[in-house]
């Protein structure tokens, strides 16, 4: 009888042990289902606005209406799911509050994607290109630092032309905009999946104390807590959830808000799989100890 119980116990442990070797294709299939299902069924969860996002929102609210905001686009199609909702939330906020802004891109793909987004939102809100917003076009990433330094001293001379190749000085939005040093820029918003925030802090915030909002992808967000803590950036939108929080502050439920349900379910799946894997691990350890 004892021998039968032992072998049954052993069989149970063996079954649990196999939990630490789940085929990865099963996991991938489960992930696909838990990501797709909330997007199809469209169920929402309440969102709490965290203080870094609130800080970003308040910075734009406080920005004087006669100043220019600069949105720096460093993302491309790879991070479109996180970066585009962030960009669109910022653009929408600026347009709703009738605040002028300029887009500049250091990635060729991002240049086009951000321009298309701004154009679509501008059309929806009745904003005119050249009067309410402008796109300075693409600049090579290798010249980013020199471009930032140039903005500090002479914006029209550094930028020269917009995305359509026309001189920026021919647009009403750029009238009276001389330089960051002159106090003409009220805000820099950097939307990026790479670690380029340090350059804005070193070359713009350092000398001129221009407020900076940082919008990284979720994986790059840990880099932003240092300057956030030090007060070098005024707010941070962390990935898609940051964009969703921002949308809730704007009273909207766009793509980022819908997608946070998928975020929740996928995170839960990872947690469940880790727990299952550890059950298998503990069982195998116990079996080895008993054996």
């Amino acid at each position, binding site marked *: 009888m004892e021998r039968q119980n032992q072998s049954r116990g052993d069989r149970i442990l063996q079954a649990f042990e196999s939990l630490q070797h789940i085929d*990865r294709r099963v996991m991938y299939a489960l992930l696909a289902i838990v990501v797709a299902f909330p997007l199809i069924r469209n169920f929402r969860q309440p969102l709490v606005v965290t203080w870094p996002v609130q800080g970003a929102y308040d910075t734009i609210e406080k920005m004087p209406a006669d100043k220019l905001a600069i949105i720096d686009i460093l993302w491309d199609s*790879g991070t479109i799911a996180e970066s585009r909702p962030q960009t669109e939330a910022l653009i929408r906020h600026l347009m709703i509050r009738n605040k002028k802004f300029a887009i500049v891109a250091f990635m060729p793909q991002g240049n086009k994607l951000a321009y298309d987004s701004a154009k679509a939102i501008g059309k929806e809100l009745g904003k005119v290109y050249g009067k309410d917003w402008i796109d300075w076009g693409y600049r090579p990433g290798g010249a980013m630092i020199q471009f930032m*330094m140039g903005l*500090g001293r002479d914006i029209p001379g550094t930028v020269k032309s917009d995305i359509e190749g026309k001189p920026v000085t021919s647009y009403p939005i750029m009238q009276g905009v001389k330089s960051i040093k002159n106090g003409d820029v009220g805000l820099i918003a950097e939307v990026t999946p790479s*670690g380029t925030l340090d350059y804005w802090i070193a*070359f713009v915030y*350092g*000398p001129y104390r221009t407020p900076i909002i940082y919008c990284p*992808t979720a994986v790059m967000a*840990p880099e932003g807590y240092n300057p956030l803590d030090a007060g070098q950036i005024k707010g941070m939108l962390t990935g898609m959830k940051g964009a969703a929080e921002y949308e809730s502050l704007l009273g909207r439920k766009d793509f980022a808000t819908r997608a946070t349900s998928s975020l929740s379910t996928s995170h839960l799946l990872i947690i469940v799989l880790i727990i299952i894997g550890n059950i298998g691990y503990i069982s195998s350890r116990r079996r080895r100890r008993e054996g």
Partner: protein
Amino acid sequence: MEHANIPIAVLEAVLVFLILYKIFSARRGRQLYIRRIPGLNAIDEAIGRATEMGRPIMFSPGIRPLDLPTLQALSILRHVTKIAAKYGTRVIVPTCDSVVYTIAEEISKDAYNSEGRPEQFNPDDIRYLSDDQFAYASGCVGILTREKVASSLMFGAFFAEALILAETGHNVGAMQVAGTPSTTQIPFFITSCDYTIIGDEFYAASAYLSREPTLLGSLVGQDYAKAVLIIVVLLGIVIASIPWLNHHYPSLLTLFSKT
């Protein structure tokens, strides 16, 4: 543009002096000790594994153009290629930048020549894939899968493609050693690679592998420089924690800030 104030200039001078002093003292013949770094020892193990299995090694020098992390990665590439050349093992080097590609090609050719195996050098093993991050990642995934790589060495600056490369390497059963100064990617390498080199161990790699006096001296100098920084941080903590000091000498807390 930021410029130095006097405290920053003094601190920089101290750090530079320490590094240079140790470099020149090492060159004069002083013996220096470095602790064991398992990840760097594992490079030889990875090359040995590839040799035994008769399959190639893939060495990825990161996705940045020619900057400090890439230069460091290329110095590790030289070490790897020299040992691989000795054993007749192929080293495939996919690059993300055309300038890095030309330098990697030169380094590989030199390494094979120095081991007396110029005929083993295959220029097609040094490949420029693409400047685009994910196009590069796809190309590397293709190489890992099609060439059935036995060992995957990833040294240099990486971003989001780090996990793609590391996980694909794991799926094909390759032994993986990674080193990067990109702090955000370290967790991904740790979960998928057999050995990971963190932080300034990456910059210590060339000294560790070559045992060249200049590089060893520089490494020891870095440790002294870090000690100076720790002392400065501790002083800052003390100053910030004593209200009397804050009140009477508030500028002490902003000593290294540009005024």
